[in-house]
């Protein structure tokens, strides 16, 4: 009998593994010869983090510090992982905690205080932690987006305010994300809490519910599948997304259109501020500080808009033309103090759930 057993199967599979010589990492900036002390630090962040390779290489060149990116799920999951591992952190710097999640992490003492000299160029109104444990990097407005073509074709006036969305002519046109599972969904809930007050928001959502608002699990599904204005060609011409989604639609169109196919309703926005902080327990505090400085520097700030579709926090940062043309900045966005959000978040979500879903 021929000596063919299971062994060859295992061996050939292992050989495949060996032949391709292990998985390939994509985001580590390549090592730079001759520069600095060769430290590598880990940037723990959410899945939406992105930057130009060139910009990250410049940082390495300037400081000798290599940055490894560790994406850890959506913003909520990333922050909670950081809290869970605070005694033995996953990395040195954390980026992507926003004002809706900030308080809990500060209470849990996850971050080391550090006042970057670059903060001198960032508006005071964005610096929410008086002890400088986190520094604001960017802002983004969560707003209702509309499908331009849908409203033009039907000669229907585009709604303007939160109140408009409850009117009969917009019945069954809006899709929102579940605030229990989605960060833009939570931001939109907070917008209604701020604008309609602690006594009015539940009644507002009852009206929205009676106007057939559709609730889905997350942004990807709402925007890519249910919304009629983007690629998925769904049935809903109004969706909760970002004020910067219209320029993203232009940049990522198959052929650049003259006008953005979608727009944002600027009276429905909630402002999210994203922060960076140094994780307590890091062994590379100096390098971590250098990275924070760099993320607040003009070089990184100018790169951000087209990488992550957010507005830079730094004053006077030059915006790319497509942003100037298509991205709107809400003049009076809703916002709430982080500690108020932290105190009430779970209760608001429970109340919202029983109002809208049950």
């Amino acid at each position, binding site marked *: 009998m021929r000596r063919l*057993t*299971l062994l060859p*199967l*295992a061996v050939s*599979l*292992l050989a*495949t*593994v060996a032949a*391709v010589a292990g*998985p390939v*990492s*994509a985001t580590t*900036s390549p090592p730079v010869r001759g520069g600095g002390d060769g430290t590598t630090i*880990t940037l723990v962040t959410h*899945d939406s*983090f*992105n*930057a130009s*390779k*060139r910009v990250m290489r410049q940082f390495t060149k300037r400081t000798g510090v290599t940055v*490894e*990116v*560790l*994406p850890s*799920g959506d913003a909520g*999951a*990333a922050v*909670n*992982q950081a809290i869970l591992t605070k005694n*033995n952190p*996953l*990395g040195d710097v954390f980026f992507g905690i926003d004002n809706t999640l900030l308080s*809990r992490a500060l209470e849990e003492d996850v971050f080391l205080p550090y006042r970057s000299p670059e903060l001198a160029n960032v508006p005071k109104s964005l610096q929410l932690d008086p002890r400088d444990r986190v520094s604001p990097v960017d802002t983004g407005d969560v707003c209702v987006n509309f499908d331009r073509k849908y409203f033009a074709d039907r000669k229907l006036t585009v709604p303007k305010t939160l109140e408009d969305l409850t009117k009969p002519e917009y019945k069954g046109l809006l899709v929102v994300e*579940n605030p229990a*599972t989605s960060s833009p969904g939570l931001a939109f809930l907070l917008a209604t809490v701020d604008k309609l007050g602690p006594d009015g928001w539940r009644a507002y959502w009852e009206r929205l519910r009676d106007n057939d608002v*559709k*609730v889905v*699990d997350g942004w*990807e*599904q709402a*925007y*890519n*599948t249910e919304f009629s204005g*983007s*690629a*998925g060609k*769904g049935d809903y011409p109004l969706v909760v*997304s970002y004020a910067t*989604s219209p320029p*993203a*639609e232009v940049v*990522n*169109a*198959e*052929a650049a259109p003259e006008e953005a196919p979608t727009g944002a309703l600027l009276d429905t926005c909630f402002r999210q501020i994203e922060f960076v902080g140094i994780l307590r327990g890091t062994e590379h505090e100096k390098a971590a500080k250098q990275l924070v400085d760099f993320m607040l520097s003009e070089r990184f700030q100018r790169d951000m808009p087209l*990488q992550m*579709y957010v507005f830079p926090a730094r004053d006077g940062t030059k915006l790319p033309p497509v942003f100037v043309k298509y991205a709107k900045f809400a003049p009076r966005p809703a916002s709430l103090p982080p500690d108020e959000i932290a105190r009430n978040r*779970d209760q608001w979500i429970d109340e919202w*759930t029983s109002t809208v*879903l049950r």
Partner: protein
Amino acid sequence: MVPARIDRRRIARGLMLAVPLAFLGVFFVYPVASIVGRGLTPDGSLDLSPIGDVVTDARLRGVAWFTVWQATVSTALTVLVALPGAYVFARYEFRGKRLVRAAVLVPFVLPTVVVGSAFLAVLGESGPLGFLGLDQSLAAILLAHVFFDYAVVVLVVGGLWAHLDPRQEDAARVLGAGRWQTFRSVTLPALQPAIAAAAAIVFLFTFTSFGVILILGGPGYSTLETEIYRQTVQFLDLPQAAALSILQLVAVIAVLLVAGRAQGRRAQALRLRPRAETSRRARTAAERAVVGVNLAVIAVLLGGPIAVLVERSFDTAGGYSFGFYRALSELRRTSTVFVPPIEAVRNSIVFASAATVIALVIGGLAAFAIAGAGRRVRPGRGLDTLLLLPLGVSAVTIGFGFLIALDRPPFDLRASPVLIPIAHALVAAPFVARVLIPVLRSIDQRLREAAAVLGASPRRVWREIDLPIVARAVLVAAGFAFAISLGEFGATIFIARPDYPTLPVVVFRLLGQPGALNFGAAMAASVILMAVTAVAILAIERFRFADIGEF
């Protein structure tokens, strides 16, 4: 027999048990115990009150009930729809059979959010089946579960069915039994262990189903799994998450014990035949109709959503083209998130190969230990249940458990790429065992004994008796393991992971930003993922075991 030989056998069996036990201990029991323990000792002292709170909460009791209920119905439905399919694959030859069998595994690897968009294209208000009103409904959940798990029943049950000797059925027919009576009294009892094995896996998958509930069911439905996700990932309410995890664990163990009883008792020695002897072309009109109807079910149920995705991946503004496939290597090329598609394919294959090897070793050893222990010894049953548990415990619990448990040497693996195939193998190993056990148990013990009496060494017995019969099942198991890893099952979705992007990761990244190009490219990446899966499964099926290859 010489006493020394018995000792060696005992040692071998001990080792077979020890390896899977150690693996499960380190990568499953320890992480889960750590995170649950952390939840139940919020201030350093044990506090069991969250368990009481969860059990007495009327809403959560409703959630637990719905979880069990939808999993039971989903399982019954999947078995009902897929059993005829298993029969067709086992008994009939038809053109393109290999390809179709590889294709039924394709849904397995698709990200739920992608499948969700395909389902919605069909079931949504303006879709062709929109009038049924199935969008965000229980029916959509059940349908999606059948879509995802059809392959489990077809391959696990079909694998054994293909080796059943059809002459037994013929004999029953000759003796006057009707078609139905033959099936009930001859075929079904022989198949029962495999059906129980497949049903147990489908049950656990649907029991812990996450994306399908959230995306296709909509926010109106919650299960224990979605609650654990909410409490852990969104609220970091570890006490409540721990209590829910315990509830989930208790429910799963209860179900497994019942299922294990059904499976263990009825296992019988069968006269297994090579596949070539058991299947043939459909001859009569009735036979052709049976084959045709089942292929039609596959075409509509599995092929429908897949066709939607393929169509979308080519549907560019200027007509059908490869535009989105080209965009895959162009979009955000200068950014840190950019992954050349070939690199993503490579990473996927590397991780899947590693996960398959680990799962074959762990699941294979466990299967031999369990089947060898047979009906006489208890420890086999215990390992059997333990091996299946990772399928029934929340991926969030396991993932977050990894974070706090595997953070020190010698298991400082939190941010290591090694953790990825390990996490996948945790899900794949029970598949391997479940595919192998029914086949191993059905090997006639008398054959082994006869060989031993004739002077064959235990190794020789294994090689000449067990291996030829098992070889075929191993390939099926390897295919499953590979697909499970390609589809990124299990805890890897919820943990921070070093950036070795695989195809599903590329799909998620593309879907994370607005724009027609991103969406189209995500569809293209999904189609590539499907193609890689089909090719890999076909390649695995091609493995030959020399003279026993036809089995």
